[in-house]
């Protein structure tokens, strides 16, 4: 392709401007976080006397250790269970082709475009009736359920493409359906399972609405849910709010930098198949 010098530079400058648009907000909250607590600094100004202590204060008042533990706990409680039951369902619908598979698939696909605010009210009422409102289960169970449409759809897409000969060979050797699933098909599904695990972890970590409505104690919520509460408390102390926001973002940012290739790939595939 031949490209003129002018176009080359115009294009590069355009990209740099957009990258600045993306990055400047982060830089701005970083410099703001270093200003004395309680002041209202200007957007990008480097403080005369950087207050690194703000991060310590935010770490303490945001109860970061409890928060991190709570978020990790939720991811550990949600993701493995969701992966296992969605994979089993995807396997049965996509590979075993049980009778009613089409209806089941349609039922799950129905939930694919469901906006969470649409069913949050009855979820709240159902949880009150079940007595799990305001416990960690209050977030865990509906999240697993809300992931089912996508996760089942995703795993089914993998199992549909697996040739039937693999299973037939195993059957001749006398494998039961359960053995067939665990010994042969799950190991072969490692790639789509890994992507799905990344997606579900990010979505759980960032989930806000369910945490806000279903759990009152911020230290039992997700990272995003806690951040919302933190904002409510420290809305007027802007440097502290920025410091807390950065701290809460830090784990995500580190993971993204380390695994950016996998994360981007997972999010893209996730949307294409969904």
């Amino acid at each position: 392709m031949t490209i003129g010098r002018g176009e080359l530079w115009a294009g590069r400058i355009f990209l740099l401007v957009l990258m600045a648009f993306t990055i400047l907000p982060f830089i701005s909250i970083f410099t703001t976080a270093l200003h004395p607590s309680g002041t209202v600094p200007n957007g990008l100004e480097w403080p005369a006397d950087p207050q690194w202590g703000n991060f310590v204060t935010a770490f303490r008042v945001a109860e970061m250790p409890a928060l991190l533990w709570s978020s990790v706990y939720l991811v550990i409680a949600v993701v493995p269970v969701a992966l296992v039951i969605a994979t089993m369902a995807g396997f049965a619908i996509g590979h075993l082709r049980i009778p009613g598979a089409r209806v089941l698939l349609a039922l799950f696909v129905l939930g694919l475009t469901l906006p969470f605010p649409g069913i949050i009210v009855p979820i709240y009422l159902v949880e009150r009736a079940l007595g799990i409102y305001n416990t960690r289960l209050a977030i865990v169970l509906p999240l697993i359920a809300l992931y089912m449409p996508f996760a089942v759809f995703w795993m089914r897409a993998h199992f549909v493409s697996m040739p039937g000969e693999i299973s037939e060979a195993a059957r001749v050797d006398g494998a039961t359906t359960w053995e067939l699933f665990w010994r042969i098909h799950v190991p072969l599904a490692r790639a789509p399972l890994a992507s799905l695990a990344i997606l579900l972890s990010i979505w759980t970590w960032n989930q806000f609405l369910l945490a806000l409505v279903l759990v009152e104690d911020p230290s039992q919520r997700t990272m995003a849910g806690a951040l919302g509460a933190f904002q409510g408390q420290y809305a007027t102390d802007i440097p502290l709010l920025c410091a807390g926001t950065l701290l809460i973002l830090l784990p995500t940012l580190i993971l993204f930098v380390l695994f950016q290739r996998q994360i981007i790939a997972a999010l893209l595939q996730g949307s294409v198949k969904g």
Partner: protein
Amino acid sequence: MVTAVMTPENSPPALVVAQQTSRRNRARREHIVGWLFVLPALLIYAVFVLVPLLLTVGYSFFRWNGIGPMSWVGLKNYQTVLEVPDLLGTIVNAFWLVVWFSVIPVALGLIVANVIHRVAIGRLGAVARTVLFLPQVIPLVAAGIIWGWLLSLSGLVNEILTAIGLGALTRAWLGDFDTALPAVGVIGVWVLLGFCTVLLLTGMAKIDAALYESARLDGAGWLREFVAITVPLLRNEIGVCLTVTVIAALAAFDIVYVATGGGPGNATAVPGIQIYVLAFSQRQIGLASALAVLLMLLVIVVILPIQRLSREDP
């Protein structure tokens, strides 16, 4: 599935019958096992999604405060949603957000992806991809908080405007009736642009370069190529971008809740926020449910044509 070593042709008749029944039994057992595989997923999905879905529809026909007795009001809640300006306004706002969250990121994403594809295939392109994608992985709540500060009176946006001599324009962007909704929209552009760009870019990489060569031989310019080759061949990717971003716009909650809470007045109230307020502050479960049903229908009505258009072969 056929595992019997003896085939019916070479086995005695009695055995054939026995074999057939045992095979039928096996098939039936296998189906039951298959259903058992689906059962856990189906059960939790039913309790926490399908039942709430039906309950939402059910509640929408009642007046109910969540605790006391329910009284049947038929379609009155729907009528209220469609007649009260503040409630109908949330749906109008949702459509404005579609422009900001969906149309602009997809259109701009097409341009950015095209630029990266043409002038920055190397290192700059790789860095740009990563940087632009970054907002997609942080919680939307964080995006709301960050931009809440940037768009405030002494925030970065006003500082930049003053620096370039547009000081007259400065204001509290999220607190002004005229600018609050577009300001929320800008947050959406920031979050979703990278996602659209990267997705469209992967699609562009798949387009056969020979198509562009032959177009150029026919004397097609940059714009012609873009309109006649790039866009039609990216139909699928554009469809995916639109689907994801339209749902993000219509179901928006996190960003709005944190950045404006729906205000000033009802300037940025969207259905998600209004459902939350109606149900949990005003205890009008029926009205909240009617709005929720309308929201869910709206998403389907908007998404279906996009899906159909993008899946069709060019």
